[in-house]
């Protein structure tokens, strides 16, 4: 295939997008992650895992497909959101940032596969998610809503400081879990050995 994607890559990416949909709405399945009344999404967690498990290139493609599937109206975003209107939401930047987060996380892990590298890569992925998403949110308020001077850059970041601690914990956890999955489950899995399609 000229794109260099094997059939297994296509099915894996498709499946991972469905996994993201589950991760974004995990609280509807299990009530365990409502902390202080705020339901937690595992989107960043899964984006980091996509980069770590599928690799930088396929991970990034998967996250792009996730964004497209959501825009096409599949209920894959948090709160079973979706639809073309999500493009206008100020938080759409976070969904776009998953593409870069997965890519960078994957690239870092491809160099060296040790536990500290996994954790650092996961944290860097999360930082990308925050920096890109928050800047997008700020720009969206400025452009879409033409927010007046009173809405400052600091206000946008203050807003994002609240969920930061739980995302740090989840990212470290994502790094550890990716390492475990890689070495216990996928190292001996079939799809790593499958031949390139004609």
């Amino acid at each position, binding site marked *: 295939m000229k794109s260099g994607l094997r059939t297994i890559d296509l099915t894996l990416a498709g499946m991972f997008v469905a996994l993201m949909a589950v991760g974004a709405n995990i609280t509807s399945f299990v009530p365990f992650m409502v902390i202080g009344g705020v339901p937690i999404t595992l989107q960043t967690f899964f984006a980091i895992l996509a980069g770590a498990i599928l690799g930088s290139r396929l991970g990034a493609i998967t996250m792009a*497909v996730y964004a497209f599937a959501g825009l096409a109206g599949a209920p894959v975003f948090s709160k079973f959101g979706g639809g073309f209107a999500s493009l206008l939401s100020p938080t759409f930047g976070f969904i776009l940032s998953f593409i870069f987060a997965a890519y960078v996380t994957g690239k870092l892990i491809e160099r060296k596969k040790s536990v500290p590298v996994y954790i650092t890569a996961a944290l860097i992925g999360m930082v990308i998610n925050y920096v890109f998403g928050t800047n997008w949110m700020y720009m969206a308020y400025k452009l879409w809503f033409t927010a007046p001077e009173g809405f400052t850059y600091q206000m946008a970041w203050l807003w994002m400081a609240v969920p930061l601690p739980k995302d740090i914990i989840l990212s470290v956890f994502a790094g550890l879990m990716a390492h475990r999955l890689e070495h216990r489950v996928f190292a001996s*899995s079939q799809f790593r050995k499958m031949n390139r399609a004609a």
Partner: protein
Amino acid sequence: MMDKMIFGRYVPAESVLHRMDPRSKLVLIFLFVCIVFLANNMLTYGLLTVYTFLMIALSKVPIRFIYTGLKPVLLLVIFTLFLHLFLTKEGEVLFRLGWITIYEEGLRQGIFISLRFFLLILMTSILTLTTTPIEITDGLESLLAPLNKIKFPVHELALMMSISLRFIPTLMQETDKIMKAQTARGVDFSSGPIKERIKAIIPLLIPLFVSSFKRAEELAVAMESRGYRGGEGRTKYRQLSWGLKDTAMLAMLAALTLVLILLRT
């Protein structure tokens, strides 16, 4: 929970908009998002509003569904209105009460910008209310086909989208099943300190990952054994057809654009 997943955003009905080619609907929405910014006075905003409500009437989607889709963003629209009301300090003072002062320009800006946003949300919602995700995927694949020339994997992207659409309900059911199975084995998902709760994800996610990767593997094997080898020369089960109504709708939007350009100040 399950009903939300099955329906997604699409509302089946017999209407012109439902029967339109997904390609023309995508082009229409894209152009609408651009021309919304042309409006800058009462008349042009009024025209856009009339057009949007005409589209809603044509779609025959019950208002109830449109309202449900709007609910989360309505707050944002109101927030925008108030942000402008209180923070823009230009023009004549219209109203003063204690520390609150409302200026003419603030009221104007607030109403126009929140109306613009409201119309954008309405039109984009109509697209996903009248078009199934799979139709949108087919439409996108066809519209983006020229990108194949610069080696952008359009067909592969569309296929990945279709696969994920097919497996979203399956994996959601699977998550439910795994959770019940692990609860039966004594995993406590709903109480305990945060650290324990995060740890409880492991017995949920590991089986989910393993089973979904197994599914991906089986699907790939099944596809290859049936002779799948990429997009080239592949025939389609769902055919798209561009009809008279698609051309008519686009012509109507073009006319609207022209009028907007003439009437804007």
